[in-house]
């Protein structure tokens, strides 16, 4: 315990400096300043997952902008969807969307979720996230960098 505290003291703050606040997306009803998100992997290659977990690391520290990943759609203000929507995950995505309380938003993360990406006409694919749930914010890239993801999330949280 003492070693841990000493290490924290020595390491200090490693978070990147705060970039400028992007313009706020005009979305009716979603709370300002705080955004709780449930992540759904609808058929991703896990590239976006790695970048998303990087967002909540001490270096990028997305929680200082009021965004958090939560464990249940019941706790969430919206969903983060990664990957193209596969047939096996379509109903799960619909159920998860139905489980989120109003008002709610969807963030499509990565090229696959935004328009299908390299999997557009592949076997077993239904389509981009917007073909199943209404997408409010798109974050493009294959995969998008944590900086881009955080910029997208900050348009919603407004911080």
């Amino acid at each position, binding site marked *: 315990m003492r070693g841990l505290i000493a290490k924290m003291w020595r390491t200090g703050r490693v978070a990147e400096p705060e970039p400028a606040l992007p313009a706020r997306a005009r979305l009716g009803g979603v709370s300002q300043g705080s955004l709780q998100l449930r992540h759904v992997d609808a058929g991703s290659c896990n590239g976006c997952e790695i970048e998303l977990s990087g967002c909540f690391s001490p270096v990028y520290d997305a929680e200082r902008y009021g965004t958090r990943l939560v464990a*249940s759609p019941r706790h969430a203000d919206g969903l983060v969807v990664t990957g193209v929507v596969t047939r096996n995950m379509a109903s799960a995505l619909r*159920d*998860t969307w*139905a489980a989120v309380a*109003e008002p709610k938003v969807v963030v499509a993360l990565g090229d696959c979720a935004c328009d299908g990406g390299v999997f557009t006409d592949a076997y077993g694919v239904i389509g981009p996230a917007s073909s199943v749930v209404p997408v409010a914010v798109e974050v493009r890239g294959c995969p998008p960098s944590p900086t881009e993801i955080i910029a997208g999330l900050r348009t919603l949280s407004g911080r």
Partner: protein
Amino acid sequence: MTVTAARPSAPPSPQPIVRASPGAAVSGAATVLVGAAGVALGVAAITRPLAALRVGWLLPLAGVSFEVTGTAGLFMVVTGAVAVAAGCYSVGYFRHAKTAMATLSVLPLFVLTMIGVLAASSVTTLLVMWELMALVSLVAVLSDHHHAAVRDAGRWYAGMTQFGFLAILIGLVVLVHSGGSESLSVLAARAGAAPSSTRDAVFVLTFIGFGAKAGLVPLHVWLPRAHPAAPSPVSAVMSAAMVAVGIYGVVRVDLQILGPGPRWWAMVVLAAGALSALYGVLQASVATDLKRLLAYSTTENMGVVAMGLGAGMLLADYGHPVVADVAVTAALLQVVAHAAFKSLAFLAAGSVVAATGQRDLDHLGGLAKAMPVTTICFAVGALGASGLPLGAGFVSEWLLLQSLIHSQPGSGTLLAVVMPIAVGVVALTTGVGVAAMVKAFGVGFLARPRSPGAALASESAPSMLVGMTMAAAACAVLALAPAVVAPALRSVLSATPQAVGVASPHFGVLLRLPGIAGSLSPLLLAAAAVVATLAVAGATAVAGRSRRAQCRAVALWTCGGGPLSERMEYTATSFAEPLQRVFDGVLRPDVDVEVTHVGASRYLVEGVRYRSVIVDAVEVRLYRPLLGAFETWAGWVRRAHSGSVHLYVAYGAVALAVVLAVAR
């Protein structure tokens, strides 16, 4: 218990029921009558001294003599009241076609012998009644003797109860020898003059004997076996009344007749109580068998009682008679409260067993809709057992904590060390006890049924519901107005030399403690809780009215795993798993996880089998080596019994020669 990924196999179906059983009705009525007589006798003894009764011809040499003291009166009221509820309940419970006449006839006899123990005023009468009580209760435990587990429980019970009887027998005979009389009241006057080694020996022997009956660790091993094995009305009487008779023995002999004793007596009682409370509650929190859980909870509660008695003895020894009074009052009130809530819990558990054929919590659930009265009754009992406000056990636990934290500073190193530890033990016991009772109620009665037997359950017979309702009413009275037992407690305190009874706690609407800055009003607390609940419910209803238009109905969230099923529920095992993990070193569970894979692939799982067996660590570590050693020793002795007549004649000749040589 064992959980498999596949559906549990079909449970044993409930026993066939016949409409009317005259035997059960007669037995139940007799039990109610005996119990009512016990209550009347107890109340009479508390209000004024009763004349002694002596029947010289009934027992050769000694005769039988009875005299109900105020102390016995309190325990007699408890025993009688439990018997009334259990007797009423048994009419419905024993209407199964299979119930043997022996079971039906011993229930009233069992109550009668307990009243006999309490009324006994001479050592011979006490011992005879004690042994009769042990034998009659053994017959009652062995009701379902065609099951091997029941016979095993009967053997354990017989062994432990006879061991306890032996200890009491030797202890009391030594006491009678030194006192020169076998009347308990004469012995009480003369015991102080006995040599201290005699008093110490008598204390140790009688505390072991009575402690074994009260289920104190490490002599508790018969409880978790006998209670599940016995029919539920018998379990209720045993757990609520018979263990209380054990406590009566400790109070009457060790506190009133022998006491006040040296300081280490108090420490022994306190330590045994603390050990029992902790061990009992830990085992209860991980038990999956409903009646086994309740049996361990009995050990826990008797441990709390013993802690109160021990703390009272210790405080009196340090010259704090007022605080000692509070501690002894807490112990006695806990006995009364325990009788109410534990008899209720056992009766409700019996109602569940009769309706579903299941005792395993992992196969119960969903009974709240099918058995509403039983569910409410068990909830009342569980609330009492968890020692929370509005429950029957709250006031006594509060009194005990008050007495433990109010030992004056500067009284001595021992007191300064022991009392905070005791407070910690009581706090931990109450906390884990709440978890155990939440598990028993939540897993056993709420959510969806986990087995076909639980799904097909229906409410029990009216007589069973009446019996449970009586016990529930007693719980409510004790929770809201504990003042009703104040005269009985005062009569016990005035007869106890340690607690002089000069300023016993003042029971009223406001419960005041003498010399301690503490007061409590259970009634006002209940009123405040009801008002607060109504206020919150009303405010929610008003606030919700405006929002109702925007409501939408969606399916329950099941983590995307399809429709909600009973396999997604908490089980008793999974609920207790964190506790089991924390107390791994004490409980020593035998956990085994077995994963089977589909075909050749290691990545696809076909089934997961989880097996967790928690045995009583005391039984394994203490009793198995003892029994093993005893068996080895008996094997040696057996070699002398070769069956040869010549050898036996030689033994006789040698023995005769020895006698002649010694008696020359």
